[in-house]
C-alpha cells in the first residue's frame, strides 16, 4: 500500500487528496495542516468580513468529510523539516513516513519591513483567523495597503462594515497586475463613489502609535487610522522545501517539472508555493489563484500515483464584485505584453465596459466591468489561441456558426455576429 503525505489543507492539497482517493481507494492519504480548521474558501474571506456570507458558509468541508473519504488529517501541526533521504516528514508531533510527498504549503502575506508593522492593529489577510481578528478588533478607520484583488475586496468589505477606508497603492494605478490603467481607473471611480479614499503612487513608510496603530505615514502624507490591513502581496511558503534541498526558482517559489515533480524524485508540489508556467506566454509565472491551485493539485495528485499528466500551465482568471458590479480579468495585461504589438479592442454597452488585448490576431487578455456573460467563450478562444480572422469567418458563415456555436457568445465583444 502506497503512503501519500500531503502538506497543506488548502485548495491544492485537498484537490490532490480527492483525486488520489478517486483513483486509488486503497492508498493511505495523510494530510498535515498548520491551520486548525477543515478546508475553507480563502477567496470568500472578504465576503465573510462584509457579512455577505456567514462563517459557516466559508467552509467547503467538515471534519467528517475527511473521515468519509478515509483521509487522515493531522491539523494544527507545523512541519519542522523534510528528511528526503529517509522519506520522513518531521513534525512537532512526531515523524511521518511517506512514499510520495505532495507539498501544497501555499503562501503567506508579505509584510514589508516598515517600522511599526508589528503594532497591534496590523492585520494580514490570508486565513479565516485573520478575518476573525479583524472583526474582533472592530475597525473604525482602516488603511488597506496594496490594491491587488485582495486589497480592493478588503477595502470594499470594510466599507460595507461602516468603516472609513483608505486604500494606498505604491504603483501608479490600482489592480496593477490584472487591469490596465484605463479599466483600473473606472474601478477606482467606483471605489471613490462609494466613499473609499484611494491614493496611488504612494509608498507606505511607517506605521506608528503608542501601543497600537494610530497613524500611517506614506511617502506623501500622514493618515490617521486604527487598523492597517496588509494586502501588498503574497510570498510562496517554501522554507521546509528549500531546507530539504528542493530547488527554488528565480521567482522565489518551488521549481517543478511539467509533471509538478520537484528536483527530488517522489516529492511533488502544487498551489501557491510553486513556480508555474504561464499558459499564454510559456514563461515561469506565479498565478496564485484558486482555480490554478485546484488544477495543480489534480495534476500533482495524478502524477504521484503514476498517471502521467503534464500541467498545461496556469492562467490568470480573476472575478470580483465591487459594490454590486462584477469585474473580471483574464489572461495578461498590456503591461505584461510590453514589447509586443498589442491591438486593443474596447467596447461599451449599457454601463458595462470591456477591453480585449490582441497580439498577432490572438486574444491574450481581457478585462471587463459590469459584464461577465459570454466571457467563457473568450476564455476558450484565448486558451486555444484561436485566430480572430478564423473567428470572424466562422461567425459570418451560418453553416459554420451552427457547427461551432460555442464561438458565438464572444461575438458581442469583437463586434461580430
Amino acid at each position, binding site marked *: 500500500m502506497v503512503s501519500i503525505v500531503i502538506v497543506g489543507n488548502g485548495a491544492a492539497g485537498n484537490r490532490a487528496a480527492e483525486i488520489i482517493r478517486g483513483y486509488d481507494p486503497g492508498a493511505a492519504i495523510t494530510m498535515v495542516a498548520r491551520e486548525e480548521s477543515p478546508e475553507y*474558501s480563502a*477567496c*470568500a474571506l472578504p*465576503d465573510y468580513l462584509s457579512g*455577505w*456570507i456567514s462563517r459557516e*458558509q466559508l467552509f*467547503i468541508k467538515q471534519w467528517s468529510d475527511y473521515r468519509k473519504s478515509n483521509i487522515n488529517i493531522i491539523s494544527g501541526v507545523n512541519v519542522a523539516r523534510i528528511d528526503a533521504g529517509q522519506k520522513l516528514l518531521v513534525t512537532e508531533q512526531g515523524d511521518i513516513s511517506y512514499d510520495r510527498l505532495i507539498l501544497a504549503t501555499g503562501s503567506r502575506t508579505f509584510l514589508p519591513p516598515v517600522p511599526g508593522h508589528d503594532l497591534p492593529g496590523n492585520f494580514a489577510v490570508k486565513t479565516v483567523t485573520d478575518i476573525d481578528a479583524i472583526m474582533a478588533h472592530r475597525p473604525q478607520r482602516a488603511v488597506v495597503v496594496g490594491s491587488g484583488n485582495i486589497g480592493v475586496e478588503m477595502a470594499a468589505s470594510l466599507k460595507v462594515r461602516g468603516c472609513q477606508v483608505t486604500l494606498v497603492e505604491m504603483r501608479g494605478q490600482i489592480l496593477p497586475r490584472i487591469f490596465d490603467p484605463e479599466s483600473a481607473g473606472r474601478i477606482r471611480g467606483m471605489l471613490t463613489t462609494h466613499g473609499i479614499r484611494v491614493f496611488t503612487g504612494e509608498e507606505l513608510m511607517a506605521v506608528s502609535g503608542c501601543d497600537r496603530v494610530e497613524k500611517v505615514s506614506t511617502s506623501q502624507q500622514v493618515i490617521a487610522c486604527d487598523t492597517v490591513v496588509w494586502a501588498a502581496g503574497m510570498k510562496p511558503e517554501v522554507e521546509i522545501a528549500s531546507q530539504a534541498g528542493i530547488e527554488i526558482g528565480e521567482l522565489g517559489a518551488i521549481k517543478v517539472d511539467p509533471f509538478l515533480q520537484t528536483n527530488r524524485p517522489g516529492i511533488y508540489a502544487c498551489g501557491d508555493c510553486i513556480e508555474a508556467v504561464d499558459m499564454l506566454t510559456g514563461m515561469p509565472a506565479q498565478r496564485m489563484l*484558486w*482555480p490554478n491551485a*485546484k*488544477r495543480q493539485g489534480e495534476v500533482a495528485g495524478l502524477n504521484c500515483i503514476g498517471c502521467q499528466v503534464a500541467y498545461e500551465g496556469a492562467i490568470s*482568471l480573476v*472575478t*470580483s*464584485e465591487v459594490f454590486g458590479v*462584477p469585474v*473580471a480579468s*483574464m489572461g495578461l495585461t498590456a503591461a505584461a505584453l510590453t514589447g509586443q504589438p498589442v491591438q486593443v479592442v474596447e467596447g461599451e454597452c449599457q454601463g458595462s465596459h470591456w477591453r480585449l488585448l490582441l497580439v498577432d490576431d490572438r486574444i491574450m487578455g481581457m478585462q471587463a466591468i459590469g459584464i*461577465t*456573460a*459570454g*466571457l*467563457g*467563450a473568450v*476564455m*476558450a478562444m484565448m486558451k486555444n489561441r484561436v485566430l480572430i480572422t478564423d473567428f470572424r469567418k466562422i*461567425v*459570418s458563415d*451560418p453553416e459554420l*456558426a*451552427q457547427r461551432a*456555436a*460555442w464561438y*458565438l*457568445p464572444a*461575438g458581442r465583444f469583437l463586434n461580430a*455576429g
Partner: protein
Amino acid sequence: MNKHLQVEIDKCTGCGLCQLACAVNRSQQFNPSLARIKIHRIELQGLNVPSICQQCANPPCAAVCLMNVIKKDPATGITVPGHNSCIGCRACQLACPFEARTYDHIHDVMVNCDLCWGHPACVEICPTGALQYCDISSHLAAVRDAEAVKRTRVPDWERGQHG
C-alpha cells in the same frame, strides 16, 4: 437511459418562449435574462442558436468554482449548481465555454440547466420542436443518419439497400 436536452438549430425561430418558460419556472419571473437557456440570434443570417448546459463529464465550471459547490450528481450525471454556499462570484461564467451559466440576480447565485428534474419547461413550450428531451444515443443516431443523407445526398433507404 441517458436523457439530455437536444437542439435542432434549423428548427429554432428564436421566439424566446423557452427562455420565458425557463425563467418563470425556475426564478419565478418573466425575465429572459434569468433563463438557463440562451439564444444567440444573428439576425442578418437568420440564425438562432440556443445554448444550454452540456452537462460536461468533467465540468470546467466546477474546476474553477471558488466555493467548490458545483458538483456532478453521481446518479444522474447532471451538473448541480449547488446554491447553498454560492457567493455569485461568476468564476464559472468565465470558465464555461458554452455560456451555460446564468447569474440569477434574484437569489444572487449562479445557475445552470439541471433539466428541471426530468421535465424541462423549455421543451414543453417549444413550438417548433427545436428543443427535445431525449435519449442521447437514439438522438445521436438520428443526427448521424440525417448527416449521412445530407452529405451523400443518398436517401436512407437506398443507403440501406446498397450497403
